């Protein structure tokens, strides 16, 4: 094939693999759900679940059809872009997810915009000043930050900024995002909390990757051209460290879609993670499936994106 074609080929290949993975996941999730005791009818009725009531509700919900059949019909629907209808409240799943997905993505997006630059600059800084006091402080700091439980950071943030200082709202939800200021205020605390969780890995990986490239002859060559240390790192080391860095960033960020349940709970942010929890606890198969798909897709697309960046950053693969 022509060299210039390689990236497209790679993309296609990645996408193919991603699709296969998705199918595997949906099956796995489905059987996992099926393994769980109690079904949606039983759980909906909760304490009021007298046998006959359950039976009646099951009948009405069409839960008596074999599970595999229900799954396949859901899959078939998915193929036509129909995510199915929630067992629990007969609303189309797409409608249930829609808004929440967007808010989840918003949060993830803002966090990314906030965290990535900081994490990268810290990592690069540490690499440049390797072995220096700054380097040590950063590495200890990163560990300390992630070793504080997420829910504690969140609660602390609320206490300080909302209750004691009253600068920020305690709830990230219901903030009218009319102005930039309002948005910043609204997102500040969840973002801070999440950053603490996801940045550590990025910082460490960035530092390692940059240090690896700093030891290469072409960076020494830059030095022998009279380049300043910053130029050496930023112009020569960094571009070649991009691949591994992108990978680390992607892995950390993949947490931001499905993993933010605690933040959603404490700041009452209507995201998709909480939706998933509800779905599982009500055994709402179509909803569970759709959420799982979304998590998986976001994870895979991030990984794929990272690969793409790695490819684009490397002329050898690009040309």
């Amino acid at each position, binding site marked *: 094939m022509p060299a210039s074609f390689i990236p497209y080929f790679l993309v296609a290949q990645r996408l193919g693999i991603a699709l296969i993975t998705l199918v595997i996941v949906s099956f796995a999730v489905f059987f996992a759900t099926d393994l769980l005791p109690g079904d949606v009818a039983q759980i909906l009725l909760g304490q009021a679940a007298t046998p006959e009531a359950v039976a009646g509700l099951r009948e009405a919900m069409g839960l008596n059809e074999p599970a595999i059949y229900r799954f396949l019909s859901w899959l078939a629907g998915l193929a036509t872009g129909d995510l199915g209808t929630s067992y629990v409240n007969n609303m189309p799943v797409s409608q249930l997810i829609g808004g929440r997905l967007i808010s989840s993505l918003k949060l993830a997006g803002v966090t990314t915009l906030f965290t990535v630059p900081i994490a990268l600059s810290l990592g690069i800084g540490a690499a440049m000043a390797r072995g220096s006091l700054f380097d040590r402080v950063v590495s200890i700091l990163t560990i300390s930050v992630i070793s504080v439980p997420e829910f504690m950071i969140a609660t602390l943030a609320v206490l300080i900024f909302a209750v004691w200082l009253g600068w920020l709202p305690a709830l990230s939800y219901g903030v009218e995002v009319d102005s930039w200021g309002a948005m910043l205020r609204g997102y500040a605390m969840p973002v801070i909390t999440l950053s603490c969780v996801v940045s550590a890995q990025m910082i460490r990986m960035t530092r390692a990757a940059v240090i690896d490239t700093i030891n290469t002859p072409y960076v020494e060559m830059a030095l022998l051209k009279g380049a300043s240390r910053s130029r050496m790192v930023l112009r020569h080391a960094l571009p070649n460290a991009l691949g591994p860095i992108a990978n680390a960033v992607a892995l950390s960020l993949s947490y931001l879609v499905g993993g933010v349940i605690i933040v959603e709970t404490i700041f009452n942010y209507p995201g998709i993670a909480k939706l998933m929890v509800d779905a599982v606890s009500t055994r709402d198969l179509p909803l569970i499936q759709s959420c799982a798909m979304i998590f998986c897709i976001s994870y895979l697309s991030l990984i794929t994106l990272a690969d793409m960046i790695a490819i684009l950053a490397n002329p050898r693969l690009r*040309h």
Partner: protein
Amino acid sequence: MTDIPLVSVRDLTIGATTDAGRRVQIIRGVSFDIAPGEIVALIGESGSGKTTIALSLMGHTRTGCEITGGHIRVGTSDITAMNEKARANLRGTAVSYVPQSAAAAFNPSQRLMQQVIEISAIHKLMSRSEAEKKAVGLFRALALPDPENIGNRYPHQVSGGQLQRLSAAMALIGDPQLVIFDEPTTALDVTTQIEVLRAFKSVMAKGGISGVYVSHDLAVVAQIADRLIVLKNGEIQEEGATQQILDAPAHPYTKELLAAFKPVTQVHAAFERDPKEQPVIEVDGLFAGYGLVMNGEPQIKILKNVSFKLERGRNLGVIGESGSGKSTLARAIAGIVPAYGGHILFDGKKQQLALADRSKEDLRIMQIVFQLADTALNPAHSIERILGRPLTFYHGMTGRAREARVIELLDMVRLPAALRHRLPGELSGGQKQRINLARALAAEPELILCDEITSALDSVVAAAILDLLKELQRELRLSYIFISHDLSTVQAICQDVLVMYKGEVVEALPAARMASDARHPYSRLLISSVPQLDTGWLSGLEQDPELLAAFSNR
């Protein structure tokens, strides 16, 4: 030449700190001058400190090292007195550097032009367009193909020889008074090496630029340097005009160096084989390649219909330049790269083509030794473990017996028994290569495939290794297939030679009469390109440009 030298170095001492924090002197009181327009060569084997000295002229020392004494003056500036910033200002403008491996010294993710003119950008010497114009001029001067556009390419898109010349352009862009060449041609094929040397020589002469040429290869240095400084263990052994040193070396070490170059006489078979014996190995119509295998054929085909026969006790040399497929041949024979066509007979016995299908015994009798000893030895294993494994694996040796044998093997390759507790990282290049060899011997093979095993070594060390190989051959009735790009080495040990080009054998010759018998134009080109220990050789060398154009891989 004026009287005041451009560079003067006085009692330079450079110290290094080991892992354990122990201080060692690696340069011990070195003094020398370089006149304007003069090219001085620093000669010595690795560890002699030649590169360290050269870099110190730019005020740069590698991590762990630092200038502990003496003075370095370049032009009007006192390098040793300067702070890092002032030194940085000097780099690229007053003194510039041409690295050993341009392939590694170019940033893979930047276009060539950008890197070539970076110096002018860093020191704000001229506008970008001027710089580019100047660069193109240098490209032309350095006889680079398509000088207008080559700058737009990425490093991986040009050949090694071209990269090396580009790195020269990179060094010259800032009009330095002094250029440091750090083994600039070691990594190149002989045919390419000639062009590069020519290019260097002409631009240096035109600009009247002084140069420091670091190399272990006397023959190359002879072509380009006015004066030689012979180094060993961080001290100057001998210093003098090139011709004078070549003709009348005073210092024994210099003599030793030269000795490594004495033309080899015909090598005889190591021992008489009895005629009934089968050839140790016979290869017939071998095809091999890499990549995805589709309907029995790999995507990238390297070897095309290679056939040869090697009698017991004789050695076969395989020469050719990078990309000629000689290494692939070794790997195909060893089964690492399974051939997809042809036969391999060992001792008349047909061998499976794929490694996986061969029996332990078949694997044992044929061992392969790789070029780069550092990557061929597991850095995490002690020497004892490295040598011990094949003993256990093939001969089921353990405990005392094994240790005894390891010591024996070390002795065979002329290494002290104490070495067995070391890690590869702690050995010199030569020592590593010997261990590499000893590991092969541990299997007690009948045939050893030597893939460029001497090319990474200093000439003296390499010579020693070759002698070792010969001795071992006599003692152990071995046969070698000796793969190399360097004819003199091949001639030094082989009776027969295969010349390979683009995966095919273009000619098979008796080693002794190569120069006379070679018919195929490529073989002739190759042979004529080997540098001679004679200052006039390069300038006198007549080569058919078409031939060059046709065969040297740029």
